[in-house]
């Protein structure tokens, strides 16, 4: 290959290093290291503490205990009640109308509407606790459960299923 660099006069150019394979190999190694390594940030803590402090807050607020109860109040209306405790207990009740049959598009729309409500609640009460307890009436279709889980999963990924009795008591 180096012969290619000879000019017709017979004099040779200074031999140059073929950089292409080297650059390729380095690129490969970079990709390999990027994919195989994990980045960890270490923090430092100095012990013992230089002073002892006392907290003026004696009681922690009670656990959030976010609960979602739902029922189909009519074939195409999904009624949901979100209730929570924490520092300022409250609740939100809302009815969502969806198109029948509950196909992919209709389910996606219902999930989006419900997610907007859940996100609003999440902004109010925060997402420090990641758990939501879901309870639906006993005859609620499985599809509604999946759609509800789709809607709450973004803000509250830890989903606990409660018995239908809770929904029947709350709604």
């Amino acid at each position, binding site marked *: *290959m180096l*012969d*290619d660099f000879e000019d*017709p006069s017979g004099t040779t150019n200074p031999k140059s290093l073929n950089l*292409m*394979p080297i650059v*390729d*190999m380095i*690129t*490969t190694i970079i*990709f*390999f290291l990027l*994919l*195989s390594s994990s980045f960890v940030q270490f923090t430092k803590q100095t012990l013992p503490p230089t002073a002892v402090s006392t907290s003026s807050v004696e009681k922690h607020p009670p656990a959030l205990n976010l609960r979602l109860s739902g029922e189909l109040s009519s074939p195409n209306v999904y009624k949901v009640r979100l209730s929570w405790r924490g520092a300022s207990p409250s609740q939100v009740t809302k009815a969502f109308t969806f198109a029948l049959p*509950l*196909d*992919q598009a209709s*389910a*996606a729309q219902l*999930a989006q509407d419900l997610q907007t409500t859940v996100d609003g609640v999440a902004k109010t009460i925060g997402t420090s606790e990641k758990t939501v307890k879901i309870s*639906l*009436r*006993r*005859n*609620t*279709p*499985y*599809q*509604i*459960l*999946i*759609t509800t*889980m*789709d809607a709450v*999963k973004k803000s509250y990924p830890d989903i606990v*299923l409660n*018995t*239908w009795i809770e929904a029947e008591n709350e709604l």
Partner: protein
Amino acid sequence: MNFDDLEFGSDRPPQEPPELPLAPMIDIFCMIVIFLVLGGAFGAADVILPKSVTLPKSVNDEQVIVAPQVTLDNGALYADFIQQSLPIASLTNLNSAERRDFIRVLKQYSQNVPESVKTGENPVNLVADAQAPYEIVYQSVALLREAGFENTLFVSSFE
């Protein structure tokens, strides 16, 4: 390279035919292979879907993982890995002997899964019709937890 170099009958010494640079191509292929090996998902799970079951629709596009499957169909909860089924009437009756026996066999299976093939917290795939009532789904999940399957995965379709 000059095309003049390839001419015959010239005074210049004969040149070698042009070579295809293979080294960069091999390097790139190696890189693609490594990328695919590290980034690909292997062992996609198979879900046996009975004809009478229509899966619920979901906007979640997470892939199904390899796990034992239980199916709610034809009025019974069927576990393919133990080849046994439990009628819904027994599923909802917490005191039924049939339910207790079913849990015992399931527990035996879940406790004997070899560590080498265990994935996470003993997951199980639950296949049920979109119209299945919440009560039955809840009772199925409760039964599976009782039998040692701590992680129930609800199989749904993403279109």
